[in-house]
């Protein structure tokens, strides 16, 4: 089970808690996790990555295991501890303005 932590505004949109758990088939990558997240919460489509290009929105970052994975390729494998569910993938709004 993959654990994903959402920022506050996306929790509100998704009517979800701070952490959601997703079944994701291997290989577990940023892309496959976001595909699963958007399939379960369609209202989040376009809020994390562009609807058409599927590129990460500029002011969002992906972290796991205290590492910034934002610039990793979308098909790169996520860390083993994320795959095993011992660590979550964090989607974080960049600190930029008010």
């Amino acid at each position, binding site marked *: 089970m993959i654990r994903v932590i959402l*920022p*506050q*505004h*996306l929790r509100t*949109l998704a*009517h979800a808690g701070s952490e959601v758990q997703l079944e994701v088939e291997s290989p577990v990558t940023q892309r496959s996790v976001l595909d699963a997240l*958007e*399939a*379960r*919460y*369609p*209202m989040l*489509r*376009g*809020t*994390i990555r*562009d*609807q*058409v290009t599927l590129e990460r*929105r500029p*002011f*969002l970052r992906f972290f796991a295991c205290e590492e910034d994975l934002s610039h990793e390729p979308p098909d790169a494998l996520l860390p083993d501890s994320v795959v095993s569910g011992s660590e979550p993938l964090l989607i974080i*709004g*960049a600190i*930029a*303005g008010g």
Partner: protein
Amino acid sequence: MSKVRVLVGTRKGAFVLTADGKRDKWEVSGPHFAGWEIYHVKGSPADPDRLYASQSSGWFGQIIQRSDDGGKTWHQPGTPPGEPPAPGPPKAASNKFVYDASDKTGKPLTTHQWYDGTQHPWEFKRVWHMEPSLADPDMVYAGVEDAAIFRSTDGGENWQELSGLRGHGTGPKWQPGAGGMCLHTIILDPSNPKRMWIAISAAGAFRTDDGGGSWKPINRGLYSKYIPNPTAEVGHCVHHVAMNPKRPGVLFMQKHWDVMRSDDAGDSWHKISGNLPTDFGFVIDVHAHEPETIYVVPIKSDAEHFVLDGKLRVFRSRTGGNEWEALTNGLPQRDCYVNVLRDAMAVDSLDKCGIYFGTSGGQVYASADAGDSWAPIVRDLPAVLSVEVQTLP
């Protein structure tokens, strides 16, 4: 007794203000969508309980919200609130605004003029204005940045561009104003469902007479001395356009500088700034029952976006322009330095006509006597981006 419902979009959420026909005691609900920029909220003339809201954020992009109960509850079209997430792919994409690039529907452009004169790709940023159909609650238009017009015929679940606007030929000459290249005004003609007007900063005003298939610039008579050709066909920074629905085709415009009027559906314009102390500004609106009575809020200049001399004054003309009187009763007349943005004024259709506007300081003022006197409904909201009003039975 009739009621009014004022729909307020702010930098940090939406608010719904309601009162009976006296308009002296108000209930305030909100913030809805707290923390998000709400560029516009507007109700359907065909079903007053149907509201559409444009919710956006620099972090999370564009969201469309819809209410089917007059603003009590909201949902993203296609994903009703509280409904368990459905398995499988999403059924709707209410925030998916994709510019039309097909050959079949005109000649959509891929670039427009950038600040430095080079060509720049069209990039969707947000919805500035939502205009529900006059007859069908499920049909709604959206004016977006970068400038284009989209239409939904299924209550906001899916959007299609009316690409004839961008494709008619002058698009490569359009360029962003300071606030972005936004399509901010959409006016529907109640006497002719095929006709509508739109305005873009900084391209100008356009009209379609065939339901949005084809468009033409309607900027003859505009003079903008800050552009290379002051009388160019496009390139004018039109801030807002208003029309009394009882007299279609007579249009009033607040341009960057200059207040303008057209009596021929936009084919030609003439200046009606008259005795205004400054004719820079953003809002303009028309009295609901007196089509020659118009309202503006002059702003000091394009360099200083606040009211002149520290005084918040609405100016009213009862003669269709040129002769203006300052309306000050109930408005601050010292140490006031707020702005009033282009979509932040509205009129109700009660007798006497109510006038409403919101400020960058978070006040929403109402006049229940056509502007003779004013009182704040609320004083301390986030900066107000838009104000609309519904007159309810």
